[in-house]
């Protein structure tokens, strides 16, 4: 974060506290913790995720050495949770960026060429709307089997139509403004106009809509993994942990509760943060 860089004036923290509501601050802190855990998962994980300790099977929360308990094979829940956070976050990040790039590119293409290109993009969006995303992913997974790369690519299609719609609309209105046509008059190629001039101007809106997609991707991936069709063992993701923990719901609810709490807290934090950003940065989209 750039908090420490610009601190010559005394009141930076006071000003931040006045500007950022308490709930948003909590959300930011939680997200920072989650990102930290995901980045340094290998270092802070107390045990390897598949290390079993059959003497300590289904140990409850608070057992010394296994603060979040152990699962049915005596594997440390905390270690698995840390690894799962990393896997789920990598998938969600990868997918969000893929869909933003893909959707924005299609939106710009539709805005540049209009005509049949636009019709094709609209027809694709119709197709996406006709098939619930979960059903489409399930079908693809049924045909191809599940793998990590396929999962990220699949999730990368999530929400592209939202970016396409926004990018198209913004690009059309931008080309009506002076700056875009000025660059065109100067002889810039369309690629330069879109990437160097229009994109920076519409980036804030696109970033805000990424905060909408991100939690939805997390929920989608954890839903698929919960059903046993997403991330496959021995790899582990948050949804996958809940799915397996469900078998031990009565005897060892902690296996399922810890990842559930992380999912809820994370999606809640991003939604709150996104809402707040939206109100501050961009009043035009709701």
């Amino acid at each position: 974060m750039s908090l420490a860089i610009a601190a010559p004036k005394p009141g930076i923290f006071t000003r931040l506290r006045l500007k950022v509501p308490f709930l948003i601050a909590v959300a930011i802190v939680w997200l920072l913790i989650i990102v930290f855990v995901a980045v340094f998962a290998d270092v802070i994980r107390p045990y390897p995720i598949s290390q079993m300790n059959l003497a300590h099977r289904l140990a409850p929360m608070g057992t010394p050495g296994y603060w979040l308990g152990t699962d049915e094979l005596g594997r440390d829940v905390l270690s698995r949770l840390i690894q799962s956070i990393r896997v789920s976050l990598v998938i969600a990040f990868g997918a969000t960026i893929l869909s933003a790039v893909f959707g924005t590119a299609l939106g710009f293409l539709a805005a540049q060429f209009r005509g049949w290109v636009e019709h094709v993009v609209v027809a694709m969006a119709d197709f996406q709307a006709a098939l619930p995303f979960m059903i489409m992913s399930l079908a693809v997974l049924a045909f191809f089997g599940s793998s990590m790369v396929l999962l990220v690519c699949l999730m990368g299609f999530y929400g592209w139509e939202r970016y396409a719609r926004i990018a198209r609309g913004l690009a059309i209105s931008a080309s009506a403004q002076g700056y875009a046509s000025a660059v065109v008059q100067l002889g810039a190629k369309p690629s330069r106009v879109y990437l160097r001039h229009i994109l920076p101007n519409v980036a804030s809106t696109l970033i805000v809509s990424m905060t909408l997609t991100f939690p939805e991707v997390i929920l989608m991936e954890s839903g698929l993994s919960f059903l046993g069709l997403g991330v496959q063992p021995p790899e582990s993701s948050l949804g996958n942990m809940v799915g397996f923990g469900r078998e031990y719901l009565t005897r060892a609810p902690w296996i399922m509760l810890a990842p559930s709490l992380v999912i809820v807290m994370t999606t809640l934090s991003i939604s709150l943060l996104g809402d707040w950003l939206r109100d501050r940065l961009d009043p035009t989209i709701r």
Partner: protein
Amino acid sequence: MPKFILAKLARAFLTIMMVMTFAFIVLRLSGDPAQVLLGPDAPLDAVIAFRERWGLNDPIWKQYLAYLTQIMRLDFGVSMRSQTPAINLVLERVPATLALTIPALILKLGIGIPAGVYAALHRGSLADRGVIMLSIFGFTIPSFVLGLVLVLIFAVSLTWLPSGGQDTYWHAVLPIITLSIGGIGILARFSRSAMIEVLGQPYIRTAMSKGLPWRDVVWKHALPNAAVPIVTLVGFMVGALIAGAVVVESIFAWPGVGRLIVISVANRDLAVVQALLLVIAASMVIANLLVDVAYGLLDPRLRSKRAAH
């Protein structure tokens, strides 16, 4: 028939065609359809007969046409698990799913919209804040977490309700609650913002300043206008009646369409997956059509705009 409905029908047909084409392409990409649809240990003569019947030795465009005519006759092939026609398997599961999703839809509409409208009319009050907070929680909690927590509380700890299965009416209570909570949150939030936007419009000020009672302003001027965006969302929910309970049916071992999807995907029973794809896409497209017609009825402006379009 009005022109805009015809245009929508053509669009709907095109969309269904695209879904079928998607299934065709994905099926061809994933390997020999005969092997895939009949299963790995199908006898050789069955594979040959299948290839003959589906014309798999023909050029690809001929195969595509043959595939389309096959689908038009609702022939999706035979489930390799139960050896019955795939489409029958799908259709016989539909009532069980609707038994969950229709009551859930009624709850969503009956609680979500009034809560959102109430919050908008009492903006800034304690009730408003409560509705906002609850609705954010409602749609950020994934249904599998919510379902399992409800099971933990009401089935495991309190033992008031059964945790899974489909034997009595009581078995439907937890799945219906789990299904509806997220939708209630989304609808409440959405109707609140739609209502707030409408209440800021000049015609509301006009209605108030000409001395109409507040009740009439709300019921006759604000609500009908706020209904237009809400209908879109409700349309999505109607479209999701068949496919929207995948996770919940899995949690509560409810033998509906969603359970069938998960089982056939896990078993790679592709004939069934294909039939499911088409049934679900058709239900979504029909729901979208109904929404468009409802728009026309609710908002004459849209009707003329679309006819001109």
